[in-house]
């Protein structure tokens, strides 16, 4: 058994931490306040090669393993979840479907810019009436000659309306019991990007609803096999769960560091608040949760990298890490007392941002369903 990251992974973690501390942390509060998607910073993340980490060198990627991608996501989330989800969604939901299911022509056309981080792709799965129940997709695509004609709407789509968004991959009903995946270039007439949502957190992350009104794309924009859309996005979501667990781990690490530092520095009744068991034990719990989340996350990432089954491990890691992150941000906010309730305090931002970790890429309830089915229980079949 070996719990060590490789020397290269350690060196890379250091670089990403340095980047995050210098290029993101000083501005995260402002972006949170102004709800600004920092395009320039995202382009810098591209220059650092973050969006190309797990992809083939022929498209400009680094051929890194999934563990290395998780390290990058964890380090970004440690200072700002908005930038972490921008990377996570950009890679996992944006680029991955094209890299995995795309034809050589589709890869050639889209991957070089996406992998270099010069453009972003989004994944349109969720609909106003179809979230966890993705099979209830209502958006339709009908073949009319050489074109798909798309009608419908999508909700909560990350990275779908930035200045550098080049495409949205959507799931659409292409027959009675048939869901397929289709690539819609961002400038396609009939595609409307709705105004950004007013979210509780992740303010600097770009999230929009999308509307398709007789939106026409060429027939060859079908991604992978017709009718395989359901299987495709389920596989994509398994990867995403580990990545969200990595985000949650970064959040936990941030809570731990901020809380311990504050517990040593802040005095009350003539001594540091960390001298009180009530505070010290909270810090001990944060350490324990952080360690557990990290181990679950990287165990799942390791399984994936080894080509071993990881569905169960991914669901376990995502469920535990997300719940732990929400608990940790609440407790860290408590340690910060009145300052913890001020928006500009990093743990306050992390608190607002963390809740979505229990919802996105499979809710806690869906994870429990996956896990209990993995145990062989005939639950809700």
């Amino acid at each position, binding site marked *: 058994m070996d719990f060590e990251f490789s020397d*290269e992974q350690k*060196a*890379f973690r250091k*670089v990403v931490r340095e980047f995050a501390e210098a290029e993101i942390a000083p501005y995260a509060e402002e972006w949170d306040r102004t709800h600004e998607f920092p395009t320039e910073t995202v382009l810098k993340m591209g220059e650092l*090669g973050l969006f190309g980490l797990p992809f083939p060198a022929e498209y400009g990627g*680094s051929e*890194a393993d999934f563990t290395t991608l998780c390290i990058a996501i964890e380090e970004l989330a440690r200072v700002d979840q908005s930038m972490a989800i921008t990377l996570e969604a950009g890679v996992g939901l944006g680029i991955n479907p094209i890299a995995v299911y795309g034809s050589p022509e589709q890869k050639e056309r889209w991957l070089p810019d996406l992998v270099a981080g010069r453009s972003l792709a989004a994944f349109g799965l969720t609909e106003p009436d179809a979230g966890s129940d993705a099979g209830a997709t209502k958006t339709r695509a009908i073949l009319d000659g050489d074109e798909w004609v798309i009608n419908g709407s999508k909700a909560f789509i990350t990275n779908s309306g930035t200045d550098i968004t080049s495409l949205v991959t959507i799931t659409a009903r292409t027959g009675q019991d048939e869901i397929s995946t289709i690539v819609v270039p961002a400038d396609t007439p009939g595609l409307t990007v709705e105004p950004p949502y007013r979210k509780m957190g992740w303010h600097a992350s770009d999230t929009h609803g999308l509307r398709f009104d007789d939106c026409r794309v060429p027939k060859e924009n079908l991604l992978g096999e017709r009718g395989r859309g359901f299987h495709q996005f389920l596989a994509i979501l398994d990867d995403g769960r580990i990545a969200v667990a990595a985000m949650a781990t970064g959040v936990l690490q941030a809570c731990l560091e901020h809380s311990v530092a504050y517990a040593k520095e802040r005095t009350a009744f003539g001594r540091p608040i960390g001298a009180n068991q009530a505070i010290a034990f909270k810090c001990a719990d944060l350490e324990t949760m952080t360690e557990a989340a990290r181990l679950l996350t990287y165990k799942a990432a390791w399984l994936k990298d080894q080509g071993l089954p990881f569905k169960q491990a991914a669901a376990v890691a995502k469920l535990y890490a997300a719940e732990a992150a929400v608990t940790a941000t609440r407790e860290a906010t408590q340690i910060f007392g009145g300052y913890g309730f001020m928006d500009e305090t990093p743990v306050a931002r992390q608190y607002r941002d963390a809740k979505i970790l229990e919802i996105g890429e499979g809710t806690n309830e869906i994870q429990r369903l996956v896990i209990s089915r993995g145990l062989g229980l005939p639950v809700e079949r």
Partner: protein
Amino acid sequence: MKIAVCAKQIPDPATPYELDPEHHWIVRPDDQILDDTDRYGVEIGLQLAEASEGSVTLFSMSPAGNLQGIRQALAMGADKAVIVSDPALKGSDALVTAKVLARAIQQEGFDLVIAGTESTDGSAGVLPQQLSELLEVPALTFAKAVEHDGDTIRIHRQTPDGYDEVEATLPAVLTVTAGVVEPRYPTFKGIMQAKQKPVEQLTAADLGFDATEVGAAGSAQYVRSVTPVPARQAGEIVEDDGEAYRKILEVLEQAKVV
């Protein structure tokens, strides 16, 4: 252009390090990092090499150990490294270090040698000038901007009040200040490639030195004693009676900040 960049591995300034009680030398941990001031030298070296289809070779005198700091510079994009690593070098002063590096650089050949102005751990700030003497080439120092045109290097040399424009014909030695360029972050691809890049390890004997010429034995300089830095004094408080800005301006002028 063939560019030699001096790169020093130092203990991480974020973690306190010790001096050995007898010689007052830094007790070097196995894990050392690239001196932050050298990242600027590496970056300007890479930019000049990219513009002239040249190459960047790193030179370092460093005890054997892991080469984490050198790998950091290779990950930024330097082509290879030459490390002079030999227990006999322990205790070398700046001049001996310069002699060792000069011979290694000469052996490799160079058009331009780039260094930081001074290292973060030793802070002697004399090595580059010694190198230029030993290599018998001009030294352009404290560059805050660098321009290259054929055989000529032109710099803005930082002065207390502004800068001087200085130029020299290659070959030359150049020292750069922090801020001359924004050093790039190594990418994961760069980190992986750094593993494969050649790191040549030489001993003092490989460069033709015998044991009496290097290390403590060959050094004229030694540290007699060290004293801890005095604790920082409380700053001066200027009470604002409406005229405080004058006083503040005076202090800033004295510090040559404005």
